[in-house]
């Protein structure tokens, strides 16, 4: 009884395409298209993952790594952001949406986007130099992200080489890989950095966020330091900083939010691309009623503050005890702040020459070359404190370089990496001006305790055939 009445519409009637997206296969036909994918990957590094105010890409991880260390105290509990990280509970929860799950997802999403670029760039139409530039950057991004993953989800490299690291992917696939050993992850990181360094020779940045050869060297220096490969660290650090002179004292106290001569790598963030409440400066800038720093000002500990000489310009980025105001409690930081009131345009620092000097100093001292170490330290610190004199012996220089790292790089995401690398216990100072029991809760933790380790997301364990519950960190 079925009657056919009218013929249907044309076949195209049911073809629809989105306007906010493009088909994947169209992206990599040209190098210009691949560059769009590369820029999107960089943009993702300051994206607010899931809209959460506690997730804003790499700088959220950097902040997490600082509040998990000894030197940064949080003033109160107000809106609660980063309190759990400070108490060492956030990263122990493998549930969806938690610190460990978001961190894992963030890094792997960047890696996957880099992998797609690496896989497809060779077949794209366009100048060879552009292909090299794009591929080199994608390789370096992959290395950079694996470096953080392996350091968060396992103890440091040295002595743990055979322990399970994180799954390694060098091409885009949708089946899960098992945890590679720490050594295997580092092997991939080094291979990628070496390849990137070659590919990026002579290339220039098209955006400030792009990685150039100096950036690769800087990342390499950071990686080599973690691996205790002192000579590589020293060499790469010196090369990385060569074209990036230190910022002036005026720039040093200007808020760490506008890129300057010293910045080798950072993320330039215009106002319309800022993530506002879900941003690094929302959690730091106390000059305006930004948001999550409200009542939760980030403070240097008295213990570290007291070790900065009065004449050192860096000391002025922290509130002098006894001069507290309603918005700036004693020891609260003013190192990081928005450059312009009324605008969220503020750049994120990722790599700068000062860190390179510190790597040079420590690595040379560990190699026994006190002269080079002393030169590097003084080159860095004398501009900040004219009276500065570095110690003379290698062991003293190591100690001094480590102290200067804590001062110079305060708030830039090195605390956890350094504690792990140096196999130091958590040892938080308490009492006035230091950590408060009700906020920090945890004061000590032995070196290499399993509590240091981020938990692999439960959803990874559930969805992957290659990782089972026994693979979870202890």
């Amino acid at each position, binding site marked *: *009884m079925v*009657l056919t009445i009218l013929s249907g519409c044309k076949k195209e009637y*049911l073809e629809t395409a989105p306007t906010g997206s*493009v088909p994947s296969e169209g992206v990599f036909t040209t190098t210009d298209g691949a560059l769009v994918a590369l820029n999107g990957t960089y943009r993702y590094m300051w994206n607010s993952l899931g809209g959460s105010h506690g997730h804003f890409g790499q700088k959220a991880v950097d902040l997490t790594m600082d509040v998990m260390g000894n030197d940064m105290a949080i003033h*109160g509990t107000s809106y609660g952001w980063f309190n759990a990280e400070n108490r060492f509970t956030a990263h122990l929860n493998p549930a969806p949406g938690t610190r460990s799950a978001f961190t894992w997802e963030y890094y792997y999403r960047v890696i996957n986007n880099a992998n797609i670029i690496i896989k497809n760039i060779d077949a794209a139409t366009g100048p060879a130099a552009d292909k090299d530039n794009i591929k080199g950057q994608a390789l370096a991004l992959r290395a950079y992200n694996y470096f953080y993953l392996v350091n968060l989800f396992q103890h440091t490299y040295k002595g743990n080489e055979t322990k399970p690291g994180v799954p390694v992917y060098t091409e885009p696939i949708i089946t899960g890989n098992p945890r590679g050993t720490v050594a295997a992850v580092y092997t991939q990181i080094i291979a990628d950095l070496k390849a990137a360094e070659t590919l990026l020779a002579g290339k220039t940045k098209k955006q400030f966020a792009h990685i150039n050869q100096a950036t690769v060297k800087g990342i390499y220096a950071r990686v080599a330091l973690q691996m205790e490969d002192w000579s590589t660290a020293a060499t790469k650090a010196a090369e990385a900083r060569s074209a990036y002179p230190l910022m002036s004292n005026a720039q040093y106290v200007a808020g760490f939010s506008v890129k300057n001569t010293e910045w080798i790598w950072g993320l330039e963030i215009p106002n319309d691309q800022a993530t506002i409440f879900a941003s690094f400066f929302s959690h730091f800038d106390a000059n305006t009623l930004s948001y999550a720093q409200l009542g939760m000002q980030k403070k240097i500990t008295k213990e570290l503050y007291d070790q900065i000489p009065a004449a050192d310009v860096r000391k002025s980025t922290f509130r002098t005890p006894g001069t507290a105001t309603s918005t700036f409690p004693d020891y609260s930081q003013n190192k990081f702040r928005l450059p312009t009131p009324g605008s969220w345009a503020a750049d994120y620092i990722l790599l700068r020459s000062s860190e390179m000097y510190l790597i040079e100093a420590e690595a040379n001292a560990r190699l026994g070359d006190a002269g080079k170490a002393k030169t590097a330290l003084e080159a860095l610190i004398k501009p900040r404190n004219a009276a500065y004199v570095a110690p003379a012996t290698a062991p003293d220089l190591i100690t001094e370089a480590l102290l200067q790292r804590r001062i110079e790089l305060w708030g830039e995401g090195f605390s956890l990496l350094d504690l792990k690398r140096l196999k130091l216990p958590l040892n938080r100072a308490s009492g006035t001006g230091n950590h408060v029991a009700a906020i920090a809760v945890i004061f000590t933790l032995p070196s290499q305790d399993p509590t240091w380790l981020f938990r692999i997301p439960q959803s990874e364990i559930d969805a992957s055939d290659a990782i089972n519950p026994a693979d979870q960190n202890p």
Partner: protein
Amino acid sequence: MKRKLLAFLLLSLFAITSAMAQNKTITGRVVGADDGLPLPGVSVRAGSAGTTTGSDGNYSLSVPSATTRITFTYIGYVTQNVTIGATNVANATLVFDSQQLAEVVVQVPYGSISKKAFTGAEATVTSAQIQKSQVTSVSRVLEGLIPGIQTSNGGGTPGSSAAIRIRGIGSINASSSPLYVVDGVPFDGTISSISTDDIETVTVLKDAAASALYGARAANGVIMITTKVGKKGTSRIAVNLRSGLSERGIPEYERVGAKDYMELMWESTRNANLVARNPATGANFTRAEAGVAASAILTAPTGLGYNPYSIKGSGLVDAATGKLNSSAVLLYQDSWADALFQSANRNDLNLNISGGAEKSDYLLSVGYIQEDGIAKFSDYDRLNARLKVNSEVRPWLNAGLNIGTTFSNSTGDFATGTATSNPFYYSRYMGPIYPVYERDANGIIVIDPVTNQKKLDWGVATQMGARPYAANSNLVGTLALDERSTRRSEGTANTFLEVKFLKDFAFKTSLGGNFYNGLGTAYQNSLFGDAVNVTGRSTKSDTRNISYTFNQVLNWNKNFGDHGFNALAGHENYSFEGRFMSATRTGFPFPGVVELAPAATLSAATSFTDQHKIESYFSQLNYNFKGKYLLSGSFRTDGSSRFYVDNRWGNFWSVGAGYRISEEAFFKKFTWIDELKLRGSYGQQGNEDTGDYYSWQGLYSLGFNNVNSPGAILSSIANPELEWEKNVSFNVGADFRLFNKLDGTIEYYERTSQDLLFSVPLPLSTGLSSILRNVGTMKNSGVELQLGYNAVRNTDFDYRIDLNLSKFKNEITKLPQAEIISGTKKLSVGNDIYAFWLREYAGVDPANGDALYYQDTKDAAGNVTGRTTVNNINNATYYYKGTAIPDLIGGITNSFRYKNFDLSALVTFQLGGEFYDGNYANLMARGTYGQALSVNMLRRWQNPGDITDVPRLQRGVANQDGISTRFLYDASYLTLKNVNLGYTIPKSVFSKYGISSFRAFVSADNAITATKRLGMDPQRTFNGTSDFTYPIFRTFTFGLNVNL
């Protein structure tokens, strides 16, 4: 129209039976009790004599002089006997029998069908039932009236709608919502844009036979809304005026006051100190030291920050006992609830003009609703108009037009989550010591020297201190200055043309369109709060959706003796286009301006367009033999733009059969059975609603720009194999009417959702979180019972009881991986979609006040040997602990009429099911500075040996708290959903003013709600979890219905 149609049928039956007796002539007039309008075509009988009323409701009947009684019968109305008086006049006022009328004709896809000939499962509510509830959205009417549906109340935001599930939960990741069809056209607007006064019936189609002809989107059932039409041969003016007052329908949780709060927070701080190192001694705090330190910090800036008492500093709470100093005087106590909430007005006025001539009918309706929210600064108002015209242009040609337009404006589109701008979240968790208005040292309200007004306290250090809860905010201040509004313009326009030819054929083509425009404003003011640092932020968004459905249907109707055939075949296009645009700017030079032009800085701008299309071919055949044996079958094929070309088309079908056994000769001996029909159906429907229009495509999401370079990031990978989710449904049921008093329906169904559009989790390390695939199977099965009992029915007094009960079971029978944990639930084969997967709370350790949880103990082989308790929640074992799916849901309506008074009461209820009350869990936190505490905290553990179910207070305690059965409650509830008491003023009082009926009523909606936990709203969600949304409200209404 129905009434007119019936009148016509009856006229033709009874006009020929006019009596010829001589003895006396009785005259009279018959009107409807509901509206006082004349009823044409009513059967008037006395013994063998009979006639029908004319179009004016009048009749004249010759009867033998001995006749004393006349019987008035009319389909859809209660039969009435009237005694003839000395005057030979017998008037009748017939009472509408909603149950009976609903049975006559059922609205089905592409037409309507006699209920008796229908093989599918459906339920209908009529305008009389709808109008008892004083609600803005018709979606709120169905709860408790229709078996087989479950509703979540959708919160109480003015103008909002309830969510509905028909026969269980149909899908895991795709939509489980039914398809709404308004006057035969799939509806894409907001349900609350349709005036409830315009609605004649709402029909819920539940099984394959009923809904398969909407195959493409019918998997989760169909809700057919049919608007009123003018009645031929009449003209009528109806005015409905309702005015009401609303208040909170769910009470707020009980929280402690200032004194208890101070003491509890002191104890929490003291207990935290006990496990910390005393910097002064280098060892852990002793109990005495811990108390001293707690007293010192309690009101300090790093503690609560505020002190509303006359005694300042560490003297306020005794360091040894933790008791508030007895000489301390409370200097102020503000109520945030009083400052933010209100008793709200609701006004609703509707004018309906309708009528018709011989060949055409019309309806014009205009309505206005103004509904304030129970939270200040939130309201909804709506102006709606509808024009409906149908005409028989030629005997072979019918045409009609139905245009509805709505303009609405809602303000106070508050955030629903933990955002500070959500007044419900904000006020619930604000500690009791934090004032709305700034106080000086003596507790006197500070007057702003500039404005001379009471100065609000923003919780910032420059005022009374940095409030540890929601610093830099005061919603009394910001909500007044902010704007969160949506202005909507909506329209529907449906037209049809129907041509009849070759006697048995009709060809009908319909074009129906929906238009929606929503202009959103989200403005944060420049003076206070979140956007101060950018001097104000305004986002303007514009959503513009246009959809249309265009169909051509050929219908054939033919009887060959005892064989009746009805067949149709058709073609349909559905097309949706949604355009969205938004921009955000900051930097406003002057307060009060929310438009973008004056703002200095662009902070975001975007726009996009979405398209969705479906093309369908369909056919249906109904057959009956002697009206006794019924068969139906339908077939439909749909193509959706959501799928790749090779997998785009899905085939959907149904078969149904009915057997009116009460029509059999051998059954006539059961005289008490008036009607008994057995029916069954089986079929397959489809679901393509993945919530994303381009599900199969591998895409890069644009807009991830890096400064001035365009950027894109992978958002989905190609999945060309993706196809329709299928829903195979089986239904058996019986419709019956017994003793001419009891009518009802009983049904059993099974729905199997297969090839689920499943968001299959991928290992996050692949850089993707999930991919849509057609895997997984889920089954819903259940029984439904609907009963109506006319207990008493006479001239002065009627009493009817309606009862409906529904029970369903949901079971996952296939999954892409062994288990998927999501929030408080775990999906696994053999369990249901909303089964709770939680750690089990084991109470409080009397020795130290620790919260305890159960942990399985295992032998070396990993077998569970028993269980123990642990005080670290992370070591606790997860168990399946109940489900959010209730054991039984239902509704009971009691309707009375005594003379001119009518009263009805609807009670709805749920038995069983669990609800995880996260709202309450937050109030039972171990002491967070600034955050309110439940009164149940007063029974916390305090000293060794205390037996209680509330663990000790301790700020920042680690690994003790988390989601567990501790906050899981029985979700059973009982709600007096609606009570409506009316009085119809006797016509004699008003008829001289031309008023044919006048009814006044009072009603209460959501009058009483009883739940297992005060403050909990178990109807908040289907999955049994709480959020911080606008609570539903209770509304008391006074109303008038006037007909001219």
